């Protein structure tokens, strides 16, 4: 099976600091993959490397069969990546509608259709469209951030800690939506600290520890793996 996204031998640095060390991973078309790891294990950096926000010093990023290693972030987004960033990162002084429009920034004509789709599925978003995004509650912000990422009808949706800062009921709601999106055929890479939650819905998983992939496998196997806890606690 040809992979939708393939990282091979990625090494990423912040200045002198070696963050990602020889990371290789694959995500197939329509696959839901979890990337697990503790604080400062390199999860967010992996996402930023995939998007091209942080350049990889060595290694390749292939997306949809194309080598995008040297391509800018805007190009990669245009090819079908999207992200729900950590802490949502909505544009607080802009309206909900404007936030959704930013999600479809590179779409020309598709935007109207995307908006209608969002409105029909989520009437609450329609009601709130003129409200400033910064005035929404945390749960509402999470919903808008997900809608914003889906505006461009991505092939690959990256999610950075969707459970962070949300009440348990909202975490469950988020994961329901993740499953819905997955069911609609979108490939996803979900970065999480909440391993049980993330693996319970994933097809496969990877575990990062201090910049290295230490475990990978089918989600079910990982859930049963006794080293997983160890990997979490540092080593």
């Amino acid at each position, binding site marked *: 099976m040809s992979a939708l996204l393939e990282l091979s031998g990625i090494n990423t640095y912040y200045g002198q600091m070696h963050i990602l060390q020889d990371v290789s991973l694959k995500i197939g078309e329509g696959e839901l993959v979890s990337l697990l790891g503790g604080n400062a294990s390199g999860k967010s950096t992996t996402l930023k490397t995939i998007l091209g926000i942080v350049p990889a010093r060595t290694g390749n990023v292939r997306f949809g069969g194309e080598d995008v290693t040297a391509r800018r972030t805007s190009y990669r*987004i245009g090819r079908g990546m999207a992200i729900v*960033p950590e802490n949502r990162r909505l544009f607080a002084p*802009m309206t909900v509608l404007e936030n959704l429009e930013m999600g479809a*920034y590179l779409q020309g004509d598709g935007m109207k259709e995307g908006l209608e789709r969002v409105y029909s599925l989520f009437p609450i978003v329609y009601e709130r469209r003129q409200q400033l995004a910064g005035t929404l509650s945390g749960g509402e912000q999470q919903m808008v951030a997900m809608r914003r990422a889906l505006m461009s009808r991505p092939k690959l949706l990256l999610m950075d800690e969707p459970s962070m800062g949300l009440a348990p009921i909202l975490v469950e709601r988020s994961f329901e939506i993740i499953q819905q999106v997955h069911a609609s055929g979108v490939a996803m890479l979900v970065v999480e600290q909440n391993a049980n939650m993330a693996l319970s819905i994933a097809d496969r998983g990877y575990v990062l520890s201090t910049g290295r992939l230490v475990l990978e496998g089918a989600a079910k196997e990982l859930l049963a793996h006794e080293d997983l806890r160890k990997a979490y606690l540092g080593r």
Partner: protein
Amino acid sequence: MGGIHLLAGFDSFTLTWPYFFDQLVAGLTLGSLYALLALGYSMVYGILKLLNFAHGEVFMIGSYIGYFVLTALGGAASPDVPIVVLLLLMFAAGMLGSGLLGVAIERFAYRPLRSAPRIAPLISALGVSFFLQQLATLLFGSIPKQYNTFGLHNGSLFNRITLGNFQIQYMQLIVVVSAVVLMLALTQLVARTKVGRAMRATSFDLEAASMMGIDIDRVIMFTFFVGSALAGAGGVMNGLIFQNVNAYVGFNAGLKAFTAAVVGGIGSIKGAMFGGLTIGVAQAFATGYLSSAYQDVIVFALLVVILLMRPTGLFGTPALQKV
């Protein structure tokens, strides 16, 4: 020179409504100019968190371009084209030239330093500022170039329109109206267009904006172009009102406009406009009722007082984040 002679003071002449309105009109005219210049500081700061010290020099170059267009078209005393065309061409050329200069400055002096510590682009900005001052002196000489706009249409542009106690020169009216038109255009651009939305998003959160697929380099380039073009328009206005331009005209105007941007709340477009008018009017009243020697004291005292009361400026918002 006794201090008392420095003061315009309050007497039967200065304590009249016509005198008051004269100062107000002069202040609003000057303030429009500061506001245009302040917008560039504020927009660039909003996106890059960079104090663009070279912005005053972009204004100065715009003023020179206005002068050269005026001269090329026959000069103020006997222009080859109608006055409206002449003024439009001066503004268009000044704005385009300054806009392109701003883009070039960003490309060569700031972009290579974007991931460097913040002090580096600041020093680079100072360097560009001195470079342009010296370059202008070298190319255009140290003797101020005369706009001689009193010569335009036999000086009739400096005639006054009178409405009761209120008087305004045609030239002041031209400056204020042009500034208002440009500011309205900018407001619409930022509020309603796609590139305007991209500018606001980038200004709020650069990385999140790039995650939406926005080409950050292009947004920054566009921001520099627009901000610098407004400075160019301000430079032409400065020549029209004050009649001349020299290589150092950008320093003082830039300092005042920067103050205006801070007073209004740096990063805020509304703040830059309001701050510019506030500083202009304060300076005019200080000159009219106290003395021109005190104008800077008053302006910077105002800055201190406003920052003491509102550290983020009049329209600035403290960084509030809801998680």
